[in-house]
Every structure is written in structure tokens, then in C-alpha cells.
């Protein structure tokens, strides 16, 4: 009965590993939130950072992160969705499709620091924009495009072909079938994917160090002139994000409470990512139920 004994031991081992990982994650999250708890207040979230003295906040960085996220999604979602539609609906097996697939894989395994350097060369230097929100958004687009393409391709491919046939049988063109039947049916998957990638974009730092930059001019929210450097509408201002700020505070933070600031900022970042994750799950569930007509 040795086999049975080994089976028992193996089962115990797998439970221990799984239990350890879950406990580890819980303690990680707990630790970050506990350390950052004193900073989770409105004044920390909204006030600007201070240089060389205590009590600074993360207001501009948080705002930059959100703005950068929105702009990146505006650019990368349509293109990624388009490429996903192409791969799922038009691509025929062959060399060209293979090249696109290889491109998607190459892009998605690209180290983000390399993408950042590419951005530095092309979006910062060659365009003459300097460190800017736009350059950062384009660098993040490079990171996000392959993910978006894959997410949409998978979601579209999982739409049953009987729906396409029904639409074609009614005399719809291919484009009508795609835009009116296939993409709407794939929407739950696509939306969930977008939100999950949003979490990744929100936490990205390496690609932004040398594109969106490591400084943030004080923002004046009543200034709506897009060409003014203090206007939040100016897409060509340097825009340090929360994630970049955490990195910078650690390596060159001069404020006496640098440690607390990093703790607080990490907790905020973690909470944001957790929220994206939970929101994606919830939305996925809701949309799925609506699609299948369950109530």
C-alpha cells in the first residue's frame, strides 16, 4: 500500500503549497495596507508633494496616472480591437498571419524598460515633445497593444459561429455581422480584458521613467488652456505617475518622511489595482448573466 501512502503525502504537499501561497498573498496585501494606513486620507491623495520637508502628498501623481491611463486606453483599445478583429475574422493561415502573430508575441514579451527606451528615442527626442504625457501614453500603448489584440481575438473567437451564420443567412455583410453581432457578443470578454490591462497600465513604471518623465509641474485645475504647462489638459507636459513616484522616492527621496510616503503611495497603488481586478470580475459576471438571459 505504498502507492496510497505516497498519494496521501503528495496531496498534503499540494495543500501546503497552495495554503502557503494564499497566506503569503494575504500577508503581503495586509502588510502594505497596514503600513500605508495612516496615509489613506484625502489630504494625502490630493495635496502636492513637498521637497525636503515632511507632509507632502501624491495629488498630481495620482491625477497623472489616471489621465495617462485614459489616454492610453483611448489610443490602444481601438487599434488593439481592430487587430483582434482582423486576427479572428479575416486572417487566413499563411505567412502573413504568422508574422502578425510573431509580432504580437514579440511585443508582449518585450521588457518594458526597452519599450521605455524606444519611447525616449522616438516619442520624446524625435518628435521634440520632451518628457511628456503623450510620449508616456504612446509608450504604454506599445505595451498594451499586444495584450489588447490577444484579449479581443480570444473574445471574438469564442463567439459561437452559429451567430455569424445566422447573420450571414439574413444577407448581412461581413462588416455588419462583425460590428452588430460578433463584437457585441464578445463584449463581456473584451471589457473584462480592458479593465485588467488597465490595472497593468496603472502600475507600470519602467516604460515611463524616460518618456512621461520623473517630474510633475504643479497643476492648476482651473487652467483649461491646453498649451499652458500647468494645465491638466496639456498633453505635452511632463507627467510623473504614482508608480514612477514610488520608485523615485526610494532612490532619491529627500523628504524626511520618504518612507511613509512610499508606504502610502504603495497602498494606494495596490488598492487601485485590486479595485480594477474586483471590478473586472464583477462586470464580467454581470455582463455574462445579461447575455445568457439569466436574471
Amino acid at each position, binding site marked *: 500500500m505504498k502507492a496510497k501512502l505516497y498519494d496521501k503525502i503528495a496531496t498534503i504537499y499540494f495543500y501546503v503549497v497552495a495554503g502557503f501561497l494564499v497566506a503569503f498573498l494575504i500577508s503581503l496585501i495586509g502588510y502594505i495596507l497596514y503600513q500605508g494606513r495612516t496615509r489613506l486620507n484625502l489630504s494625502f491623495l490630493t495635496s502636492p508633494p513637498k521637497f525636503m520637508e515632511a507632509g507632502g502628498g501624491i495629488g498630481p501623481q495620482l491625477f497623472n496616472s489616471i489621465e495617462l491611463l485614459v489616454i492610453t486606453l483611448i489610443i490602444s483599445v481601438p487599434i488593439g480591437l481592430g487587430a483582434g478583429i482582423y486576427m479572428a475574422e479575416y486572417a487566413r493561415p499563411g505567412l502573413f498571419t504568422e508574422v502578425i502573430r510573431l509580432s504580437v508575441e514579440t511585443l508582449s514579451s518585450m521588457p518594458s524598460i526597452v519599450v521605455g527606451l524606444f519611447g525616449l528615442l522616438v516619442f520624446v527626442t524625435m518628435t521634440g515633445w520632451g518628457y511628456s504625457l503623450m510620449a508616456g501614453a504612446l509608450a504604454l500603448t506599445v505595451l498594451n497593444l499586444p495584450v489588447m489584440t490577444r484579449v479581443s481575438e480570444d473574445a471574438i473567437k469564442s463567439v459561437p459561429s452559429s451567430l455569424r*451564420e445566422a*447573420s*450571414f443567412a*439574413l444577407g448581412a455583410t461581413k462588416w455588419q455581422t462583425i460590428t452588430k453581432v460578433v463584437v457585441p457578443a464578445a463584449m463581456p470578454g473584451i471589457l473584462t480584458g480592458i479593465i485588467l490591462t488597465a490595472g497593468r497600465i496603472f502600475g507600470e513604471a519602467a516604460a515611463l521613467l524616460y518618456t512621461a518623465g520623473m517630474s510633475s509641474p504643479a497643476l492648476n485645475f482651473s487652467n483649461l488652456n491646453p498649451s499652458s504647462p500647468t494645465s491638466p489638459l496639456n498633453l505635452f507636459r511632463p507627467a510623473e505617475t504614482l508608480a514612477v513616484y514610488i520608485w523615485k522616492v526610494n532612490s532619491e527621496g529627500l523628504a524626511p518622511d520618504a518612507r511613509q510616503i512610499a508606504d502610502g503611495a504603495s497602498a494606494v497603488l495596490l488598492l487601485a489595482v485590486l479595485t480594477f481586478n474586483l471590478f473586472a470580475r464583477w462586470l464580467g459576471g454581470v455582463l455574462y448573466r445579461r447575455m445568457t*438571459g439569466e436574471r
Partner: protein
Amino acid sequence: MKKIEVRDLDLFYGEVQALKKINLDVEPNSVLALIGPSGCGKSTFIRTLNRMNDLIEGVKISGTVLLDGKDIYKEVDVIELRKKVGMVFQKPNPFPMTVYDNVAYGPRIHGIRDKRTLNEIVEKSLKAAALWDEVKDRLHHSALSLSGGQQQRLCIARTLAVEPEVILMDEPTSALDPISTMKIEELIEELKKKYTIIIVTHNMQQAGRVSDYTAFFLNGELVEWGPTDQVFYNPKDKRTEDYITGRFG
């Protein structure tokens, strides 16, 4: 004049010949049943009539299919064709939209925007599919909340909304319970006054009940076809007789 004339139709999936020299006529306002064992080519055949096989990679077709005297592979635009030749599939496949939007989908993609016209079409089609009374209070609920039988009648309504002349039905009741099946059969009886119907069925009794003409397929060949009574009770070909008697026990 015949509604559909099929002449020397061959179909290949790559190297495999799935249909061999099919010749067949379809009378207007009649019901033609296609019978035969599974894999005999009857579903493949019905899909050549609205060119659904175009969607499958590697399909080669030769011969002619005439709709109202016009070659559908040469003289008719595929989208025009599919408007004229509607199709109901084996499994109900409503779109994940509301009941209303499902029926309005066809008219909309063909350019009808006017709300009142759409309302009329939806009501008329649902009534013609004998579904109106059951769904009129939940037109804006998801179509997926309907029962299987209702879903299939919705798919028929969706087909009717495009105002086709011919309706192809590929085993439309195979996924349904007996009561829903009966309702669909009654509907077919009603629909043939206005439309020409071609139905694939694996159910001999169903073919006997609903059809005016029957065609028997075997291994990609059309063995024989004619008025249903003749094919059932006085078949010319030994194979037809074997199949029918075998089936009836």
C-alpha cells in the same frame, strides 16, 4: 415556372466529393423535404442554395443553381441571394440581444431605419411565426430567456422579417421537444402559402407530415425525388425503399 432548378451540381470539400451531379426542381409554394442517413449530403446540399458553403474554406462547386431562372453563383449577388433565400438552423441561434432587436436585425442591416416601419415588421413577423402572443409583453427582454422552442420560432420570425421567397430549414426541430416540434410543423403548413420551403429532416414521419415533395439522398447522390406520396409508397429505387421501410420498421 420552377422556383429553383439545380443542374449537375457537384461539390468538393478539398479532395472529397460531397455532392454528385445533383439535378432537382423546386415548385413555388411547396414544401420539399430532404431525407437520408446522416452524412449523406442533405445539409451540404441545402447550404448550396443560399451559398452558406462560401464561408467554408476549400469548398469547390460546379454545375448551376437557378433561382427564378438566374444562376445564383454567377448572376446574383450573394447578399441579395441570402435576402431572398432565408435559413433556419438546426439549433436555435438567437443573437444575444432582445427579442425585438433579433427580429429587427435583418431589416436594419438592409437599411430600414424608420421606427414605425420596424415595429410593424417585428409584429408581423412574430405573428407569422406564431410567437407574438407569447412574447408581446417581453419584446425587450433577452432572446436567450426564451425556451428552446420559442427561440426557434424567433429564429423563423427573424428570417421572415427580411421577407424572403424561399426558406431553408436545416433540421429545425432536432433540438426541440415534441410539443415545440408540433408547433413548428403547424407553422410550416401555414408558411407554405406564401413561401417556398425546403426542409432537411432526419425524421421520416415529419417528412411525411409536412412535405409535398421528398428527395432522398445517399452518399452525396440524389437517389430519387418526387411527390412525397410517390416516394414513400411507391419508390422507384430499391435503395429508397430499403431506407424507408427500414426506417418504418
